[in-house]
């Protein structure tokens, strides 16, 4: 075979094929499904999930996991709402503080994981409890935000042909996606993250600053989750302590469907974005259909995750047999 596909790209290729297949099938089945408008809404409605999942990709690539992201979204949303509505801050003052708070939480979690050699899963679980508790302590009720600036941001966007709306949330997602691709593929830190996930021991021997990289990864994830919280808070014009319950699972699922190996070291941010779009597309399909119920979303996503995990497993087994390491 002369045309050899890079095996690392195979899961991403499967994701692309699946996405196209779903979209085309939907376009044939439903009127108005195959429009630019549906595509743009996919970006807008899943912006917060996408931003979170991009952060999760970094963590999973480094061989860890971050279960706190859903709670961080709720905490930043509530904090944002409290600062703007109850303390009368301008959103432009509130947003940086909220994002810095997210980064600090990531710093603490990363430091605990790195310095005391704790399992990421249990530390970020504690982080999840902590952030969710802080959010409920700040306010149990949903706080609506009425602020001219927030409305202006929500109304900001470009009207594309076919009444497709390229809104500010979608712009934020695409901007962060481009930044993430740059960070992962064109900076030294990106290489360090891949090395760390591939084999932490070898990475350390090669001179990768393992500790700093690992802590940075968790800071990155929490910062992005806090950003997603701000986006979500603007999107719903409110802050609610129970927002984003279970979102960490959706983010992990998107990363897996995007072809990133859960043991770390292999994967792409673009795959994650595709994974998010697939999950959004399934939801759009179910809402277009009308007769299917929303719980089918969870079942289909569960099955998809299973299929992709088996695919990855088969792939690494095959490569191991042919004497190459993935």
């Amino acid at each position: 075979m002369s045309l050899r596909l890079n095996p690392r790209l195979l899961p991403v290729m499967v994701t692309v094929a699946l996405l196209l297949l779903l979209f085309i099938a939907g376009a044939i089945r439903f009127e108005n499904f195959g429009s630019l408008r549906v595509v743009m809404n996919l970006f807008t409605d899943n912006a917060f999930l996408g931003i979170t999942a991009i952060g999760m990709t970094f963590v999973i690539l480094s061989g860890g996991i971050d279960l706190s992201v859903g709670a961080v979204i709720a905490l930043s949303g509530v904090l944002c709402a409290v600062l703007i509505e109850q303390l009368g801050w301008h959103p432009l003052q509130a947003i940086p503080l909220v994002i810095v708070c997210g980064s600090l939480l990531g710093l603490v979690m990363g430091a605990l994981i790195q310095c005391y050699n704790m399992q990421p899963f249990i530390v970020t679980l504690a982080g999840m409890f902590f952030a969710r508790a802080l959010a409920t302590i700040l306010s149990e009720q949903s706080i609506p935000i009425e602020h001219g600036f927030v409305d202006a941001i929500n109304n900001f966007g470009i009207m594309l042909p076919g009444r497709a709306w390229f809104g500010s949330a979608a712009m934020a997602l695409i901007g962060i996606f481009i930044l993430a691709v740059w960070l992962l593929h064109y900076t030294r830190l990106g290489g360090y993250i891949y090395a760390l996930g591939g084999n932490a021991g070898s990475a350390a021997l090669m001179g990768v600053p393992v500790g700093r990289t690992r802590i940075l990864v968790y800071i990155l994830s929490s910062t992005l989750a806090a950003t997603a919280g701000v986006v979500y808070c603007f999107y719903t014009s409110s802050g609610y302590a129970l927002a984003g319950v279970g979102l960490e699972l959706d983010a992990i699922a998107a990363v897996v469907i995007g072809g990133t190996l859960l043991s770390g070291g292999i994967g792409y941010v673009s795959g994650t974005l595709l994974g998010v779009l697939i999950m959004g597309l399934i939801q759009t399909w179910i809402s277009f259909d009308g007769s299917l119920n929303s719980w089918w979303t969870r079942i289909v996503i569960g099955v998809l995750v299973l299929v992709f995990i088996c695919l990855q497993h088969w792939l690494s087994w095959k490569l191991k047999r042919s004497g190459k390491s993935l």
Partner: protein
Amino acid sequence: MMSAVNRFRQSRYFWPLVALALILLANVFINPAFFSLEFRNGRLYGSLVDVLNRGAPVALLAIGMSLVIATGGIDLSVGAVIAISGAVCANLINSSLDSLFIVISLGLLAGLIAGLVNGSLVSYLGIQPIVATLVLMVAGRGIAQLINGGQIITFSHDGFAALGVGSLFGLPIPVVIVAVVLFLVHCLVRFTALGLFIEAVGCNPRASHYAGVHVNGVKLAVYCICGVCAAIAGMIITADIQGADANNAGLWLELDAILAVVIGGAALTGGRFSLVLSVIGVLIIQALGTTILVSGIAPQYNLLIKSLVIVAVLLLQSPAFKQQLMNLLRGRTT
């Protein structure tokens, strides 16, 4: 005498029991009524009984989870299994099936199937436990919704409801169930070689394999036991509220169960477990929660304190932290 005290201080039962004693001691000052017990209508009432009763579902999960964690695994799907078994039982009762035996058996079967799925993914397909059980965690609540048809199914069946609210020998039935399950699983792992195999697999799966342990079989068995324990917990929760709520039944209980096992001193990397200590861990969490409630602190702080407790326990288990603490203490004395 002195050596017995010393031996107790060295044993791993020491710190968990001290923690439980401290929480109970705090209640002596905050709320002495905590310890009052009353015998009414053939059953004991009081805060202590309440702690045991409320902790029963988590205790069942913790028993199963201890075994899974001892093999170096984790089962995130137990919350979803609770929802599934609850949904199965509630729908069977509503289908005018009168035999309690069949209802309970099929509920247990649902848990066993879930355990088989998790166990086969982890052992025979070799997928990381967090990921393998994540699949059922995501899909499981969807399946429970599917069984329930998207509704909260309520029922009235005195026999089944007794699982949650009845009493036996003066104790609430959930407490009796926990005691029975604890005894059965304890006998299973300590009077057969299974416990040894579980610890061996957790310490070093490859070495165990070469030593002739059927590693995959052991892993499959622990996930099945965990699934069945979760199914029992699901039935207790469903019987308690006489309804199956696919969205909220057992939500976040997997985290409490894992926390209880960690507080009980088991290493998340596997190789060491104690069922009794895990149940003590559950009692610590539950007593802490009840104490927070009766002491008048807002219930929102419960979660905050829980998260700080996890970090504290993990720090105390970490060798690096112990070293730092020793250095700090030594530095102060010199």
